[in-house]
């Protein structure tokens, strides 16, 4: 089966610019997660979707970050305007949550550098 796809893989922008990341989860996976992973740290959950509804966005900086999941499948994460501290790898993961399968499958991530 195809894995979690993310694009772009790398992005360099200047502060105050906007950027968008795209994620396509594994087919049939109902739960989708966006994480921010700063260098040397563990992933921090930004937002969690169940189908196309938001389950948890308590750590999403809503003044600059937004996310949506279209028709319960693909998802986009946007940052506008970007700050230097947003430099990180943005990971997308998905889970099936059926038949005892509750592990997350991760995409390759998007490495964002804000200059």
């Amino acid at each position: 089966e195809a894995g979690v796809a993310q694009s772009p893989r790398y992005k360099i922008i200047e502060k105050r610019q906007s950027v968008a990341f795209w994620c396509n989860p594994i087919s049939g996976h109902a739960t989708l997660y966006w994480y921010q992973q700063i260098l040397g740290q563990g992933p921090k959950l930004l937002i969690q979707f169940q189908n196309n509804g938001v389950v948890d966005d308590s750590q999403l900086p809503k003044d600059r970050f937004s996310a949506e999941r279209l028709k319960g499948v693909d998802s986009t994460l946007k940052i506008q305007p970007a700050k230097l501290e947003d430099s990180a790898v943005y990971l997308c993961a998905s889970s099936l949550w059926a038949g005892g399968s509750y592990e997350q499958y991760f995409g390759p991530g998007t490495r964002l550098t804000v200059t």
Partner: protein
Amino acid sequence: AQTVTQSQPEMSVQEAETVTLSCTYDTSENNYYLFWYKQPPSRQMILVIRQEAYKQQNATENRFSVNFQKAAKSFSLKISDSQLGDTAMYFCAFMNGGTYKYIFGTGTRLKVLA
């Protein structure tokens, strides 16, 4: 709120030797799952092993096993017969069984030496 603590930022082990990575967590939940994920350099995160909190038996996957001490809220990972390909960041993760929300530790960088 749940927390996950990995107290060993870096570790090294000789090839073919055994190493144990530590993880402690804090929660008041009864329904949860614990995971170890591996993130090789410049590669994506993959699952190593998982443990359901309601199971007393420690999980095992080939060379990887856990020591799950529920009362102590401890979840360590033992890697036997270490291989060069085991070099990676290892993250301990807690998942709330009701909300499916994950919390990750800060990671342990493991280096296997030839």
